[in-house]
């Protein structure tokens, strides 16, 4: 199969997974927790890599996901002890990221993990990093990792759609309904960590944040219904992946960077032209209501 196909497939899987989770992050006003998690998984990746010596262990996925959850837990703990929420996010993720960078730089000889690669990812190489089972080439490993992450997300969201929806919009009511809100909170955070780990090699730690937040925000400007928001978010992510890939090809530049850039431009278009919440329609509405006020 051609390399274009695999790269676009990886990008689409990544943006679909991020797009779904991002909607819930935006609705729960936790956009920056996603930022924190995607940085905080770095020491987990480094430690697991150091211990197991390979990149494709399940242990790495689990270890790093656990570290993401630890970060969420620590942030929550600091918040409960009276520190502002954004400051506690800032303290925890920078500390964990610093530990990760130190582990990687001290073991630079033993770890075949390039810092640049961790931050920006190198999606262009996905098709050479294949997964072999029983001696048969099963295709790129990233596709498998992101595919299974997406499958888990879809499964959990389908099973507990109502619970996630109520806890996103009205946590107090969710508690009153007997929904274990904390459990769903950590479930969501666990999924975000898992997705960050699965996609860090292809798009890097910082650009995962972009794919978590930007398409979901675009969708948030386009609709008021959660189901449609999820759909639009995934769609925007996939469209930015495809356009971003070809833009990167033309410019001879990083694919991950150009995907996020395209996503940002799509957000800008929605910001101005959205038929529901765009700047233009707001102006028009304002003018019209002014007009009627004068006419009356």
């Amino acid at each position: 199969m051609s390399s274009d196909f695999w790269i676009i497939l990886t990008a689409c899987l990544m943006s679909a997974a991020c797009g779904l989770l991002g909607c819930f992050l935006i609705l729960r006003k936790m956009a920056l927790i996603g930022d924190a998690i995607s940085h905080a998984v770095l020491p987990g990746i480094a430690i697991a890599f150091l211990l197991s010596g390979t990149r494709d262990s399940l242990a790495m996925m689990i270890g790093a996901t656990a570290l993401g959850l630890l970060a969420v837990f620590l942030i929550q703990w600091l918040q409960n002890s009276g520190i502002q929420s954004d400051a506690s996010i800032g303290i925890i993720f920078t500390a964990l990221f610093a530990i990760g960078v130190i582990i990687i730089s001290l073991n630079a000889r033993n770890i075949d993990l390039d810092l640049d690669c961790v931050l920006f990812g190198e999606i262009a190489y996905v098709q050479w990093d294949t997964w072999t089972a029983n001696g048969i080439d099963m295709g790129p490993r990233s596709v498998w990792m992101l595919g299974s992450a997406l499958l888990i997300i879809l499964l959990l969201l389908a099973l507990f759609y109502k619970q996630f929806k109520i806890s996103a919009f009205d946590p107090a009511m969710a508690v009153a309904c007997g929904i274990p809100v904390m459990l769903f909170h950590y479930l969501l955070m666990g999924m975000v960590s898992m997705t960050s780990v699965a996609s860090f090699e292809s798009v890097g730690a910082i650009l995962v944040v972009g794919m978590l937040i930007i398409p979901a925000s675009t969708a948030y400007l386009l609709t008021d219904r959660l189901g449609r928001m999820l759909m639009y978010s995934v769609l925007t992510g996939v469209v930015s992946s495809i356009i971003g890939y070809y833009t990167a090809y033309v410019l001879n530049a990083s694919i991950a960077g150009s995907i996020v850039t395209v996503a940002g431009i799509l957000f800008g278009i929605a910001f101005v032209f959205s038929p529901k919440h765009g700047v233009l329609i707001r102006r028009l509405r304002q003018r019209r209501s002014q007009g009627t006020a004068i006419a009356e």
Partner: protein
Amino acid sequence: MWNTIGALILDPNVRWIIVGCMLLGLSSGVIGSFMVLRKQSLIGDALAHAALPGICIAFMLSGVKSTGGFFIGALVAGVLATFGIRWITQYSRIKQDAAMGIILSFFFGVGVLLLTHIQHSGDGGQSGLDKYLFGQAASMMQSDVYVLAGISLLMIVICVALFRLFKLISFDPGFAKGMGLPVAFLEQLLLLLTVIIVVAGIQAVGVVLMSALLITPAIAARFWTDRLHIMVMVSGIFGALSGLIGTLWSGMVSQLPTGPVTVLAATVFFAISALCAPRRGWLAKLWSRKQTKDQWQRQGGISHE
């Protein structure tokens, strides 16, 4: 160990770097206190990421790596980013945290796009441009330290001169407005100072970790006092000490980057403060709870009559 530290301090090159990092820690601690009190801690993170495209465009326009050019590019990008965040929150229903995330990752995405475009186009002068991402204090030269020292001094002078005004807009912007102060202008000025210090610090500690220097010392200082001028001073001292420890330690161990060690030192200051600070610290709270309990029991405890 003390011998190596002594040797490091005597080395004139290292001494410059130490001075630079300490000044950086000092001034970001001072500015950070105001940002933390104004509940805008993470704006530093957004600004640091936003600087990348500015640096790249400055390089593309000038074709050389000059600290001055990068500084101006990053400054312009940072100011644009603050406007972007404000527009998004003002003209749509997107909240501030999401707006910050959007601007941060979009600017960074554009930056990565430009950076890789420059790298792939094979211009020999671009090597080392990516050093700006992780920060390499060891690459600071004497002229860089002069620039950093000048900026830090300017910051501190402005903060001292406008201390009362900054204090007012940090605690009660509504009242400040009522008094007829130019609140919007002062807020923009504070933001501009943050942009300047972030841009100056990127070279030493890197894009990702710059925000820690703004947040962590300030929150650590908050544990020790309720008075703003003491908090600002303590925060500055914590920042400067973190810079000192970071530089010394990374100088002693090979391959240890300066930025992360500085950040970890700041985190240790935070942990110590959160544990041991009088009154607000964790231990002090435990102690006072125990005292209250004992007193209650001495008085006879709960009676079940």
